[in-house]
């Protein structure tokens, strides 16, 4: 299968990439190409111009920044999964990245491409929403940041504007006493998440002081579950199960492998298990 014909431009800097985006209508940025090329091969995408940003070192890497961690948009899943910085201050992001596809996919795919593509079965979006990460975008007119929870708008739709490049993601460091976990129910064919549950809980003196649960794969965008009932509790299995059962999506997605009803059910079960795993790590 061949993609339709297109012109190829390789950007040498973010500024050049932004210029090329302005210059060519309907141009597509390409990072790792691991969502874009499959779409182009199936002719679901036929951009006239592809702007390869894959070599922009300025958008690569993981560093500590302002009490959190800054992850450049071109950082690969493999680098995220193996990052010591993330392992220390934000392990759940590394855990989720390690679940993506397979070794070859993780070597090419990037965090920026993953969230800009916003597949409902992606592993990264629920984790960023869970962590309260901010997504940073740059356009010719400046930079802005948007909360992960607002970034994902609908199926394959995000807040990235046509003239914008996603530069990095800022993730707050996990506070003391916090445990987190990402649990994935993998699709046996595609390897994407049928359901991916990201959870975190903070415990002080045996009592829960903060808790969060975000489930991917069930709705078009990551679904945050209200688990505030856990705050002040001792995080008993019953309390956790009760909180996770609050998962609710109006219009759950389904496919030939797993119907919407079933996904909601598994979302509750995995939500419960992810919360319990987070508790055990806190």
């Amino acid at each position, binding site marked *: 299968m061949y993609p339709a014909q297109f012109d190829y431009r*390789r950007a040498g800097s973010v500024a050049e990439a932004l210029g090329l985006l302005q210059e060519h209508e309907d141009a597509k940025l390409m990072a790792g190409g691991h969502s874009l090329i499959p779409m182009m091969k199936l002719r679901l995408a036929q951009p006239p111009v592809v702007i390869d940003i894959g070599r922009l070192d300025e958008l690569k890497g993981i560093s500590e920044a302002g009490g959190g961690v800054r992850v450049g948009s071109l950082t690969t899943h493999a680098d995220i999964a193996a990052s010591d910085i993330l392992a220390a201050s934000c392990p759940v992001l590394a855990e989720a990245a390690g679940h993506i596809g397979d070794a070859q996919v993780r070597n090419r795919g990037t965090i920026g491409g993953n969230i800009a593509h916003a597949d409902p079965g992606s592993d990264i979006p629920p984790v960023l929403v869970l962590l309260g990460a901010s997504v940073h975008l740059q356009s010719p007119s400046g930079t802005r940041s948007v909360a992960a929870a607002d970034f994902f708008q609908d199926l394959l739709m995000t807040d990235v504007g046509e003239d914008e490049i996603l530069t990095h993601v800022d993730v707050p460091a996990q506070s003391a006493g916090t445990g987190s976990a990402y649990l994935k129910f993998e699709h046996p064919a595609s390897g994407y998440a049928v359901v991916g549950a990201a959870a975190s809980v903070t415990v002080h003196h045996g009592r829960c002081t903060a808790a969060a649960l975000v489930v991917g794969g069930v709705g078009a965008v990551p679904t945050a579950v209200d688990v505030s009932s856990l705050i002040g509790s001792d995080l008993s299995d019953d309390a956790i199960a009760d909180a996770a059962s609050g998962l609710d999506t109006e219009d759950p997605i389904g496919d030939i492998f797993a119907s919407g009803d079933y996904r909601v059910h598994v979302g509750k079960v995995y939500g419960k298990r992810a919360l319990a795993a987070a508790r055990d790590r806190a």
Partner: protein
Amino acid sequence: MTVSIQLEVNGKPVQAEVEPRRLLVHFLREDLGLTGANIGCETSLCGACTVLVDGSAIKSCTMLAAQADGTAVTTIEGLARNGELHPLQDGFWEKHGLQCGYCTPGMILSANYLLEQNPSPSDEEIREGLKGNICRCTGYHNIVEAVKYAAERMS
């Protein structure tokens, strides 16, 4: 339009003009005659097209030849040294790790990458590391044995 690319393939410099939409796997197979990288699925899932780009295992059906500009690519044809099989090739031979052989080049290159990262993997780590490669013949049993054999010989 065409793109000029310069890269190293199995240690030899290669220069070419390619269409932007030329996939690396087609470039390797059709332009360079390196037919070891197979095309098994076209949806980036079978791993038969796996090659090493700058030492990392990647699926060459999901990379443009243009993206490989400036890199060093290793295909199965580049693995043997001075006519001697690589320990992984030897392992697949000794342990009957292949039947039809279609998945084998990709399996071996993925396994090669795995052993670079983790020279003595457990069975479970081998199975996790090769999860991007599908084999329709062997049931994977002897593939795991072949990788263990190679790991031992390489250590």
